[in-house]
């Protein structure tokens, strides 16, 4: 297996280098046969890496402990299904995974990019192959998963128990793919610049791949939050940990990009700015890979020590210099064609959006980098943690959510205050009532009230938009309401896909506000039969069972839950003690409802076997955060779905005269 894997990777490296070189030479000498050859080499690179991946999977399945990587990350007792996780549990395997994912996306992107992009295509391929060659080379020569041990051990070390969770099947690979996927829109943008033909041709493909990277990161981040919530056992889901931040920052920059690119798509403006944004996104992505795989800062994600820090730091530096080097080299080409007609317009709203998203990214980067600077330059250790991020980023997020209520209803070019009023008058009134009700019921603090108010405003505004649209569509086409709604969504997919994602953001906001400001927490020690109160709930510790395995001791506590005195169910809180890892792994018992989660952590059993320590939490609205995930996916799919055929448009056209005059405020 070692030989097969190593040779496959060598071949992949040769193919990637060949593909890059022939792309460059082919496009310089206008040799289209050579460019075609480079594309075929690109496809074959993905194939060769696929074989290397297969070799490593087989090595795991056959318990081939001659391979150091296999011996380190699996053992005979490991269920075979965890091979999926063990594959990327260390640097060597995860790099192979990243290289394979990049090669697959590079092949797909080059295959799908329209031929009319002409010389932009080989240049984009050149950029992709340079990045890919770097990853394969590092993987092959510095951290090979196919390195062998001098003596084959009888059994392996095994997998880190924290990774043995369903969330770990998807969260890490999505984040890794998401980070590297930014290379594709980046290559399209920079490739276009290199070719010197920087018109707006890269915009569609750039937007599509930007959205792909964006949704991969978004779902990856959400799954990470869900994993943290259910298994890390502190009742939270986001800790502003450096590695979380490292994946979050490129996502923020990408969010700015997928909004801003719409301005170029519709109005031909912001060309310069969009290239700058995708550069920033990829640089932050490279920074993410450095933090994640290089391990320069202590983090909850420090699963394996790494010696590759300087390699990824170098990569980060080269990417930053090269991308902005090309940017300034071609600066003169990037003049925008459009112009701004009014400061109150969709274009300006997108600018403010960009400012705020980059603001959050900057604050986060500052928080990650400052301790490093402080330590290096001043010799003073400083921790920049949760309180800093919450109090600085919180207000920016509030402004962003408020902008979600205004921005989408502003027309392009120029809006009038009347049109703004028309769009948010009713939602504003409803929001006032709801906020007043919240204030009367319970005031926690100003931030919480503001969060609830802006989130409500956006939710009601989107609902109003969809109801008005559906009614108009129903009047015009006589379709039944559900069909009219679907037609409405189909009529402008980027817009309504965006609305669905905005709704998901509102759900997240409600969950975050609820759990940050209205959560109740109690640490209690209970003996069997004793109970403790948290909010309206009474939790009784009824029993605990202990199961001993070769590598761990598992305990499950059964808790009877009463709400306002009446029995509502039982929850089971679990923990496992892993002596060989010196580690306690918990899995919270959660009773989740749309209103609130009752969350029980079983932290310790006293030696008497009857008394145990628990942490009880009441987290309002968290349920909605996990619903946001499906909405994000759905919204992105809607936004990405290819434009429909003409035939459908004909169906909607007959009644157009009747509906014409009701144009409204414009």
């Amino acid at each position, binding site marked *: 297996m070692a030989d097969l894997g190593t040779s496959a990777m060598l071949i992949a490296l040769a193919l990637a280098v060949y593909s890059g070189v022939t792309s460059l030479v082919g496009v310089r000498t206008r040799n289209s046969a050579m460019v075609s050859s480079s594309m075929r080499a690109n496809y074959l690179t993905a194939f060769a890496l696929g074989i290397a991946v297969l070799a490593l999977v087989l090595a795991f399945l056959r318990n081939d402990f001659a391979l150091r990587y296999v011996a380190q990350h699996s053992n005979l007792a490991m269920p075979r299904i965890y091979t999926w996780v063990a594959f990327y549990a260390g640097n060597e395997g995860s790099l192979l995974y990243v290289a394979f994912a990049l090669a697959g996306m590079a092949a797909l992107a080059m295959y799908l990019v329209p031929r009319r992009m002409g010389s932009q295509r080989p240049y984009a391929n050149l950029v992709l192959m340079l990045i890919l060659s770097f990853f394969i080379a590092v993987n092959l020569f510095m951290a090979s998963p196919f390195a062998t041990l001098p003596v084959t051990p009888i059994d392996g070390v095994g997998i880190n128990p924290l990774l043995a969770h369903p969330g770990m099947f998807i969260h890490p690979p999505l984040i890794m793919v998401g980070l590297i996927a930014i290379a594709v829109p980046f290559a399209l943008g920079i490739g276009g610049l290199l070719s010197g033909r920087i018109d707006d041709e890269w915009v569609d493909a750039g937007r599509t791949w930007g959205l792909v990277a964006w949704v991969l990161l978004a779902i990856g981040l959400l799954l990470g939050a869900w994993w943290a919530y259910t298994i890390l056992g*502190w009742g*939270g889901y986001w*800790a502003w940990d450096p590695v979380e931040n490292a994946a979050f920052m490129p996502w923020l920059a990408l969010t700015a990009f997928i909004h801003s690119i719409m301005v170029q*798509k*519709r109005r*031909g403006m912001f060309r310069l700015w969009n290239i700058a944004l995708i550069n920033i996104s990829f640089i932050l992505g490279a920074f993410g890979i450095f933090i994640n795989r290089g*391990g*320069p*800062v*202590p983090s*909850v994600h420090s699963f394996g020590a790494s010696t590759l*820090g300087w390699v990824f730091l170098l990569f980060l530096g080269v990417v930053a210099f090269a991308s902005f080097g090309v940017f300034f080299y071609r600066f003169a080409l990037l003049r925008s*064609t459009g*112009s*701004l*007609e009014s400061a109150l317009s*969709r274009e300006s709203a997108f*600018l403010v959006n960009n*400012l705020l998203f980059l*603001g959050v990214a*900057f604050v986060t980067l*500052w928080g990650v980098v400052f301790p490093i600077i*402080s330590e290096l330059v*001043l010799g*003073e*250790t*400083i*921790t920049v943690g949760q*309180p*800093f991020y919450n109090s*600085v980023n919180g207000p920016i997020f509030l402004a962003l959510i408020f902008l979600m209520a205004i921005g*989408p*209803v*502003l*027309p*392009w*070019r120029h809006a009038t205050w009347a049109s703004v009023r028309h*769009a948010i008058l009713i939602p504003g009134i409803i929001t006032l009532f709801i906020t007043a009700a919240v204030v009367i019921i319970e005031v926690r603090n100003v931030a919480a009230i503001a969060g609830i108010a802006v989130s409500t405003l956006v939710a009601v505004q989107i609902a*109003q938009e969809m109801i008005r*649209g559906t009614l*108009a*569509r129903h009047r*015009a*086409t006589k379709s039944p309401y559900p069909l009219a709604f679907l037609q409405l969504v189909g009529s*402008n997919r980027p817009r309504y896909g965006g609305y669905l994602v905005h709704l998901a953001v509102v759900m997240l906001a409600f969950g975050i506000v609820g759990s940050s400001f209205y959560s*109740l*927490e*109690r*640490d209690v*020690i209970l*003996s069997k039969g004793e109970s403790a109160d948290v909010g309206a709930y009474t939790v009784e510790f009824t029993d605990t069972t202990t199961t001993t395995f070769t590598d761990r001791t598992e305990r499950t506590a059964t808790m009877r839950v009463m709400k306002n005195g009446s029995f509502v169910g039982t929850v089971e809180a679990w923990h496992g003690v892993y002596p060989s890892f010196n580690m306690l792994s918990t899995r919270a018992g959660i009773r989740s409802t749309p209103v609130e989660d009752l969350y029980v952590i079983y*932290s*310790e059993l006293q030696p008497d076997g009857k008394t145990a320590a628990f942490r009880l939490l009441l987290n309002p609205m968290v349920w909605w955060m996990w619903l946001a995930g499906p909405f994000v996916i759905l919204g992105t799919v809607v936004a990405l779905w290819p434009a429909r055929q003409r035939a459908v448009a004909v169906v*909607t*056209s007959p009644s*157009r005269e009747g*509906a*014409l005059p009701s144009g*409204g*405020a414009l």
Partner: protein
Amino acid sequence: MVLVSDFLFIDISIRKRALVGALLVLLVLASLGAPGAVRAQEYVELTPELDARAADLYAGIMCPICNGQTISQSHAAISETMRQMVRERLVAGDTDQQIYDFMTEAFGRDILASPPKSGIGLAVWFVPPVALLLGAFAVTLFVRRLRSADGLVRQGSGAGPGDLADAHGGTGDGLEPYLQLVDEEMPDIEERP
């Protein structure tokens, strides 16, 4: 073992201090005769109000030996001990600031989850708002420049066709099939000749 963090000279002193802190706690515990985590009979129970304050305090104090976790998150024995210390101070009637001071006295300043608003820590808090203001200023300048360019370049150009439908769509009732048809028939800008 050579770690990248060693290469970057980052958390060496964190570790050293953690060691000192851990030793200190061991000493305290040894003097109390408690060999590990907090025992049930010693556990300081709090009223719900104090529990809420304790939760905030836990989230503001880092576990000195865990990678990037606060004592609210970590299951390490030292975190359990530190939580107990916080609870004892709360019961004794200390203010939040007094408790933070007490904890930094014992474990070092870097256990604070966010830097104090003084000394070097001030820079951490000061820079982001300044950067945001500068950004807002830049955007304002940019909008102004684009608008003045508008006067010169686009004199008299009426509303372009491409986004008419979308513009009306923004008011909520511009979804009429007519406008929609206009929108469909108008290509995006890059498809125009």
